């Protein structure tokens, strides 16, 4: 494009990620996934397609799972974000979804895993009563080439059960 005003292509934002407030100048064309990875060094959020289909870049924005490649970083100004790095507790205790992925062999190469785990953490925190059909729908926007999905579903069912306090 022609000459652009710096003020229109750069913005100052403040965003809370995993409990830490970050203030940064961002290029307006930068998507949120790139911002998290490159500016904040939070490389656990992966970019698998950058056109909003694979789900690897899913993060939790103000409580909702969203695709971080389909949002501009500038739009996250004022938002509260949780990424895969922020799901476990400070003492290292895993989120029930993380724990279940480990127990049930819910990952192989691990590249889609952050998006799967954040998606499932968000939907199960909202509703831990989801059954297999609902879980499969919840992750239908997350592509995994390794597992065939079954062990991810099993992991989600285990996590849901624990989050309900069944045992």
């Amino acid at each position, binding site marked *: *494009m*022609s000459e*652009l*005003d710096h003020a*229109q*292509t750069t*913005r100052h934002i403040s965003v809370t990620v995993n409990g830490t407030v970050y203030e940064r100048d961002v*290029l*307006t*064309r930068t*998507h949120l996934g*790139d911002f998290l990875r490159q500016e904040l060094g939070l490389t656990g959020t992966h970019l698998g397609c*950058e*056109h*909003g289909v694979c*789900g690897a870049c*899913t993060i939790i*924005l103000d409580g*909702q*799972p*969203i*695709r971080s*490649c*389909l*949002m*501009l970083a*500038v*739009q996250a100004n004022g938002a509260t974000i949780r990424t895969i790095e922020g799901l476990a507790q400070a003492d290292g205790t895993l989120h029930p979804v993380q724990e279940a992925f480990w127990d049930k062999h819910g990952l192989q190469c691990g590249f889609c895993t952050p998006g799967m785990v954040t*998606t499932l953490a*968000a*939907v199960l925190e909202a509703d831990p009563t989801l059954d297999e059909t609902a879980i*499969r*729908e*919840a992750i*239908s*926007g*997350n592509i995994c080439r390794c597992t065939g999905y079954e062990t991810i579903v099993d992991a989600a069912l285990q996590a849901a059960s624990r989050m309900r306090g069944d045992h």
Partner: protein
Amino acid sequence: MKASAFAYHDPKTVQELNSLLGSLDNVRILAGGQSLMPMLNMRYAFPDHVIDINHIAGLAEVVMTPQGLRIGAMTRQRIVREHPLVLEHAPVLAEALHWVGHVQTRARGTIGGSLCHLDPAAEQPCIAALYDAVLHVSGPRGPRDVAMRDWVMSYMTPNLEPDEALLGLTLPVWSAQGQTIGHGFHEFARRHGDYAIVAAAALVSLDAGGVVRRASIALAGVDVKPVRLAVAEQALVGHVLDQALIGTVSAMAATIEMMEDAHITPAYRGRLAQTMTKRALSDALNRATGGRNV
């Protein structure tokens, strides 16, 4: 796969929005971003200016008005799908949204975005057609309303001037008035969350004798815009709705002229239109009769 550079604007009022639209060239409006952002990242779109309308107050409200259910353009699909007013007055919209994208895209995607993007197979414009929705547009010459039947100008092109924007829509929802209303929505997509190849939405209002007093059927994926099956609607009214009648009117869906693309033949679209119409009407009948006519 990174977007080209653009100037970013985030108006706080509709007036600011209209003034930006009136003064800038090569602009794209950023609503939920679920269609525009992929196009930016893939450099299918190279706007000089992106106007983010997420900060304009009042564009995400869902309210009942005398004219019907008014839904702000920036209402997220997740909110629409779960909204008590939608579930009460337009449950077919909530049902259709079940098929729209995925949990992550519904969290950001907006009903207004879908109505401006206008994928021919999209569910939300189909529901707007089903209800003869009225679309509320703002511009520097003041607000104007556009009937859904006049909304789609051509392939993926809404009836908007360059300096106008969609603020919301009103669904003139049906009131029962002693009758029972049933709805159905079916679509055929290759995978869950994909755009439909063909989708059908149906609304019927039955009197105590099971006679259709009012009917609406809309199809997506058969033309560049949602298509109302007026002939089939007329064929329903005044008759007792049963499976035989559903079969007859569904066959009408296959007879309309189908669009063609490189991958899907008109014949297959016609077959899906018939099947989806039949299934949507069957659900509508079932719901209107409380399951007595499964």
